[in-house]
């Protein structure tokens, strides 16, 4: 490689934007997909479903981003960012779909940055504060297993856009679940301390299980995954303790508002700005 060539190429114009970092393309993410809503599909219901799934993904990605520069090892730094980027990508596609079907024509940022906590429909498990690595792994295991089972069904959705987003997401979520399951086994079957932390994390997560299955009943699939993983990890299955309320109805913990305040701070400080 000649030095001069590289220096010069930096100053030139570039048309090959596809080579930019993964998930950061400048194209409309739904470019080329027929976005007409098929007859018989209720646009209100479709928009509500996409918002809820996008909110789950955005809030989860935000919690994963909080690990940046704080992960226990560089490999985990890379892996957690990968998962966060996948979820952020899913959120962007879903919000774009909402803007197409709810009649407002709004872009993805309108939903992420200019709605308040009451309007968010994510499940509460996604918004709970980061906790330790064991908590993040248990949460990721539960949420990715649940979302994967849900997306497998959505891949047959009558709306072709949602079906395509779900089909793409299935591949990503399969990896997320695998990553979380491997760490769950390592930590459950690691040291006394890691085992203790995993038990505590399972207890912390358990109250938030119930609401996951109100929208989409994939309880059996998720329970089967958890049973398999906890067995391999030498951990007890979490005891189901339902907690009243549901993020899907806009009822959130006190942790969502500060998360959104941070996420939305720059965008709201300069609402006229373009980024």
């Amino acid at each position: 490689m000649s030095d001069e060539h590289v220096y010069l190429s930096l100053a030139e114009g570039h048309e090959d934007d596809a080579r930019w970092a993964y998930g950061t393309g400048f194209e409309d993410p739904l470019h080329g997909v027929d976005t007409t809503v098929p007859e018989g599909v209720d646009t209100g219901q479709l928009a509500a479903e996409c918002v809820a799934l996008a909110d789950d993904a955005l809030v989860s990605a935000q919690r994963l981003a909080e690990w940046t520069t704080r992960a226990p090892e560089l490999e985990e730094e890379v892996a957690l960012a990968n998962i966060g980027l996948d979820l952020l990508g899913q959120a962007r596609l879903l919000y774009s779909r909402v803007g197409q079907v709810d009649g407002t024509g709004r872009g993805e940022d309108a939903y992420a940055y200019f709605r308040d906590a009451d309007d968010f429909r994510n499940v509460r498990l996604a918004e709970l504060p980061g906790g330790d690595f064991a908590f993040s792994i248990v949460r990721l295991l539960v949420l990715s297993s649940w979302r994967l089972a849900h997306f497998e069904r959505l891949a047959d959705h009558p709306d072709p856009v949602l079906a395509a987003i779900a089909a793409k997401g299935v591949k990503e979520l399969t990896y997320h679940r695998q990553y979380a399951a491997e760490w769950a086994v390592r930590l459950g079957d690691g040291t006394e301390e890691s085992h203790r932390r995993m038990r505590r994390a399972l207890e912390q997560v358990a109250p938030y299980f119930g609401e996951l299955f109100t929208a989409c009943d994939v309880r059996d699939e998720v329970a089967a995954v958890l049973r398999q993983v906890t067995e391999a990890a030498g951990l007890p299955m979490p005891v189901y303790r339902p907690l009243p309320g549901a993020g899907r109805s806009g009822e959130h913990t006190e942790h969502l508002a500060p998360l959104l305040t941070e996420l939305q701070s720059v965008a709201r400080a300069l609402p006229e700005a373009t980024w």
Partner: protein
Amino acid sequence: MTTTHSAGVPPRDVPGAPESPGAPGAQETPDALQEHFDATIARDQRIEPRDWMPDGYRNTLIRQIAQHAHSEIIGMQPEGEWITRAPSLRRKAILFAKVQDEAGHGLYLYSAAETLGADRADLTRRLIEGRQKYSSIFNYPTPTFADVGVIGWFVDGAAICNQVPLCRSSYGPYARAMVRICKEESFHQRQGYELLLTMMRGTAEQREMVQDSVNRWWWPSLMMFGPPDDASPNSARSMAWKIKRHSNDELRQRFVDMTVPQAGKLGVTLPDPDLRWNEERGRHDFGTPDWAELKRVITGDGPCNDQRIERRRTAHEDGAWVREAATAHAARRSERARKGTAA
């Protein structure tokens, strides 16, 4: 491209004569090994991990590669602060991916250092204990989102000037790691510059943010190339060994020449009254950075030195139980596998 003098000899055993019988050069004296090494360098060929190399060469490389790896990892912090606050989802994805790339660069570089007999955990300890350094630039704060763009434009731009010649470094694993890193850095630089172009087309407040950020980062970026040549004690030896290919001042000049037209296109002013085109030299003249400031920042007295190391230390210490658990689990697994095989 390679010589294979000391195949099988642990790297730390240099410069004693290699012992592996039958390896080419097994009978050679230290003088002959040195001559062979010198000839490889003179022919512009690469030194590979199993080749004999002088202790000084090995130690210089470990120091340089480790500093470079530490810079990637510490360098995640100033911009990483903005991932959770990026003002659009597209900017959030770009920044998240960039900071992730830096973790990846750190990984390749620690691996390159390990080919010389260093150990990642040991290098991390040295960083945390302040016994090894990282680039001075990452000790400056990032108070606005414009800093994300300016870091991409200046800091990644300066890194590219520094690192492109390293793709031809005499040490093979380092040179190969640099090829991939430079490609990714050039995306980062373009992404940073593109953010600034967008902001400059935005509101007056955004344009002010960009100019303010340029004012704060320009001089520290020029300092990234290190002290002037007449005050850079290790440079001459590194150049003789072809670990380094151009002097600090030469690279600094290249960076200035590359950046001035980009600043013009962007519509910002570089904060140097002495900056002007010199027709005779065919290059830009520019002012002298505050070398006393560089010295202060390098010796630990920059605006964010303590904060950067503290974050790295906390992550490392908080993660200890995770790493211990993984090790314990792996040991138990292989024990179970061994028993399973024996049964």
